[in-house]
């Protein structure tokens, strides 16, 4: 039998867990969950949700794959090409994930089930659409029960969205620290006073935060008995109210500092067309199945890769351009592209219990080719990272590299040096080629028209255990 490996973030829910075998992710359904799983599959809910691409489809596999006693079924879900986390999503990605969660909740209630959790980590963008990947998130609804995951929904979705919309979009990064969502008292204290004018935010955030603090550790009914119960209709009303509140939250991404990068004078149109052509040619040589575009801006070059069928993760650290990239992806119904908010100077770290619940960006590497276009000067000069370290970092991520070298006399580099001392003696084409040549073989090199920029296709030589060449 092949080796199993537990997935680090899958241990809280007693209904089952995920594990990896031969590179594929499986989900075990425990016996305790049998009744709920059967209801999900037989009621029509699974069929409806998978047809609408709201739930990941799966097949049941041979029982010999069972890992521990108590297993009822083992599922092989359709595999996600990349696992992303809510703190890597732009505003509209979080919003769409929230709306998908509420839609799933309402459809579940129609079939006599309810979502027993509402974690943003259970949503992944599969073929461009927010999709629930945790098949065990449902339980049979007992008439009269409240929605147990209401607070989780508010912390994971509503609080970050409200803060990003009404205060500052960068506050979405609080999700990096607060893995179970932004505490409501913190969100309420950061939100401006005018948010009290919004009924939804007042109820679901401000009042909710106060109630949680007021009744922390207290039983709900003094005598321990329950009086009149909440009905299914009440939960549907709450879900509708949450949906209206989420839909009412907006953020104007056009104010981003990078959104107009290509519209400016970065380089001439001919040079830009030349670069598109060369990137296409280089991709045809490398023929990657998966590409990571680092510093992708709005994804112009990512699309050259994704349109060739390569699943492309399009990363940038500017919330505005990631938003634009995502909205464009949605509009065009692109399925092989995933825009993400990633700061390369501080990429997502491993987090959670034993640092194993959420993988670092490096741990999730699965690309065959890195695109690093008009990027190196930002890393080497704006962030003071030596060229050798940059080469090693890229080499750890993928075997192929398409990289643009922007010389020091380029307008964009001069702009970076305008108010600071030039301490970057090693930053020259010659040194760049020498240092990257230690790690890579240069397969192709072309000068871009109308500029002194150079575009390289490089192939990694070899990489030792420690990541050093």
């Amino acid at each position, binding site marked *: 039998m092949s080796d199993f490996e537990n997935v680090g973030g899958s241990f809280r*829910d007693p209904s089952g867990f995920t594990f990896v075998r031969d590179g594929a992710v499986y989900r075990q359904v425990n016996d305790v969950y049998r009744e709920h799983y059967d209801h999900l599959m037989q009621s029509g809910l699974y069929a409806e949700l998978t047809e609408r691409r709201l739930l990941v489809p799966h097949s049941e596999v041979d029982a010999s794959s069972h890992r521990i006693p108590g297993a009822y079924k083992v599922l092989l879900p359709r595999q996600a090409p990349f696992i992303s986390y809510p703190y890597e999503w732009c505003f509209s990605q979080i919003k769409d994930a929230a709306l998908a969660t509420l839609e799933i909740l309402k459809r579940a209630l129609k079939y006599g089930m309810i979502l*027993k959790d509402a974690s943003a980590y259970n949503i992944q963008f599969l073929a461009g659409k927010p999709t629930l990947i945790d098949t065990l998130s449902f339980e049979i609804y007992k008439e009269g029960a409240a929605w147990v995951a209401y607070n989780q929904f508010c912390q994971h979705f509503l609080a970050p969205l409200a803060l990003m919309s009404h205060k500052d979009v960068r506050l979405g990064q609080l999700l990096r620290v607060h893995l179970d969502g932004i505490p409501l008292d913190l969100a309420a204290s950061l939100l401006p006073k005018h948010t009290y004018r919004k*009924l939804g935010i*007042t109820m679901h955030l401000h009042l*909710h935060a106060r109630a949680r603090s007021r*009744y922390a*550790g207290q039983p709900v009914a003094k005598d321990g008995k329950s009086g009149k119960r909440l009905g299914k*209709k009440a939960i549907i009303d709450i879900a509708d*109210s949450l949906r209206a509140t989420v839909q009412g939250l907006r953020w104007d991404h056009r104010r981003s500092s990078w959104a107009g990068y290509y519209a400016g004078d970065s380089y001439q149109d001919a040079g830009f067309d030349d670069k598109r052509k060369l990137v296409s040619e280089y991709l045809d040589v490398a023929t990657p199945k998966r590409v990571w575009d680092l510093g992708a801006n709005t994804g112009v070059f990512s699309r050259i890769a994704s349109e060739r069928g390569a699943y492309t993760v399009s990363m940038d650290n500017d919330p505005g351009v990631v938003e634009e990239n995502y909205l464009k992806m949605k509009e065009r119904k692109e399925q092989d592209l995933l825009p993400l908010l990633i700061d390369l100077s501080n990429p997502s770290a491993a987090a959670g219990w034993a640092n194993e619940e959420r993988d670092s960006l490096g741990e999730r590497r699965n690309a065959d080719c890195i695109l690093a276009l008009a990027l190196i000067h930002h890393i080497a000069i704006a962030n003071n990272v030596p060229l050798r370290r940059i080469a090693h970092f890229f080499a750890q991520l993928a075997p192929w590299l398409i990289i643009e070298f922007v010389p020091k006399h380029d307008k964009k580099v001069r702009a970076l040096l305008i108010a600071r001392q030039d301490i970057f003696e090693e930053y020259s084409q010659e040194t760049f080629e020498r240092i990257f040549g230690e790690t890579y073989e240069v397969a192709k090199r072309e000068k871009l028209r109308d500029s002194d920029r150079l575009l390289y296709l490089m192939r990694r030589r070899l990489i030792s255990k420690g990541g050093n060449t």
Partner: protein
Amino acid sequence: MRLLQAIRKLGILCVCCRALVAYLDPGSGSLIVQALIAVVVGALATLRFWKTRLLSLLGIRQEDDEEEADTEALPQVD
């Protein structure tokens, strides 16, 4: 807060997390606030229903459902 306490005293609420597979702590405050919100949202829906009926009786045609977000706005309170 008084309103929340009153709801609690009246025993309007209830709460059941009976399912064996429920593993999240819903939090007492979150359960109480759900009951309150259900009452508020239910009342608003009833008001909207009667408003539509009344307007249609008077022969005043309302535009199709306005953006729900707009109906979320409270009257100016500050």
